[in-house]
């Protein structure tokens, strides 16, 4: 830490995506977790499961970075939904 003012991630979005089962939601969470998205000092996302619903908590330095990060993650969620739907 350089001692400079720490960037605060004050632009936040909370997204909820329902699945059919808790197992499916957990699969989604595991698939999404490994990948870094954008610079960690500018953007952060946390995944969690409540029963069969996937919760995504995004925090960002501004609206522009938030939009890019959120849309990118949603693209991955749509792939996961389509894959589970076809191959479960």
């Amino acid at each position, binding site marked *: 830490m350089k001692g400079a003012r720490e960037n605060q991630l004050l632009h936040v979005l909370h997204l909820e995506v329902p699945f059919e089962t808790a197992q499916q939601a957990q*699969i*989604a969470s*595991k*698939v*999404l*977790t*490994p*990948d*870094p998205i954008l610079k960690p000092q500018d953007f952060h996302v946390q995944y969690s499961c409540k029963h069969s619903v996937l919760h995504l908590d995004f925090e960002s330095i501004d609206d522009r970075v938030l939009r890019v990060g959120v849309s990118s993650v949603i*693209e*991955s969620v*749509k*792939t*996961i939904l*389509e*894959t*589970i739907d*076809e*191959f*479960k």
Partner: protein
Amino acid sequence: MVNLNKVPPRHRKQYYLALGLEGSANKLGVGIIKHPLLPQHADSDLSHHCELQILANIRDTYVTPPGEGFLPRDTARHHRNWAVRLVKKALQEAGIKDPTDLDTICFTQGPGMGAPLHSVVVMARTLSLLWDVPLVGVNHCVGHIEMGREITKAENPVVLYVSGGNTQVIAYSENRYRIFGETLDIAIGNCLDRFARTLKIPNEPSPGYNIEQLALKCTNKDQLVELPYTVKGMDLSMSGILGYVDSLAKDLFNKNTKNKLLFDPQTGQQLVTVADLCYSLQENLFAMLVEITERAMAHVNSNQVLIVGGVGCNVRLQEMMASMCRDRSNGQVHATDERFCIDNGVMIAQAGLLQYRMGDAVQDIADTVVTQKFRTDEVYVAWRE
């Protein structure tokens, strides 16, 4: 000697089944393969004699309009939107009713374009968790090499890997595919593709193929347009040649009669056609490749060459390489056809299944993060002596 049967097939099968997913550039490939369980694999060096059966080889290419290249964002969109449909088609073609029977799901971990690679790995991970099938991350170049070895049965050749994204001369030594020579700037496929854009020729089926066809139409083969020849020791550089040939093309289109190479200074008559430029460019670039390949062959005392990667489909390149090999104690050049020299999922399955059989499966999903840079020699080639 190596034991390729170290990890037995799952569920007591007498064969291995692997699904391979490729998406590092603009081709999305899904392959399904089968390796029989063979006793001779228990203690030998036969990783290029797998008795490979290809159960499905599906591919869809993202093609841009003439004059345009493919950018990561749209390429990733193409892969995302087609991935599930292609896997479904591959499973149907392979007759696999129960995908939980697969031994492994192999995916390209790198090198390549970040967003497209990522689109594919998201689906690979999901399938792995749904079906409870282990994942294997594969180096794209090693995929090409192993496919080339299995199809051609070449015995320890020097490998020339030439594609849109890569240009390397590789030789196997002590469990590594070592890079003996490579491009110092751009890949040869990239050079050809960008020239194709300058000429605004179609990208369907591929820009390189269309350059090759144009070159065949050259009627002036005896009068090569002189281009810079930039071999540097074991390596080569191509960006200067591209810049120069691009400027020649522009002068041709703009009818810049001041260019004495292109237009007769007295009459202003055009001396050089687009076909001539394509021909000369190929001859020049390929001669450079032949030179650095030959240098590597001398180093490792080999007279066999295996050409892999999309540019390997080029018949002229194969001819020039064959000619050089024949002059070297009657050596041979080996190449595969467009089913396999162009990026595909089967090659990823082939290399991945060899890795899997040697015990290299993903233990932690965090290890499946894709990477744009992944050197060929980073892979430990456990399946060879």
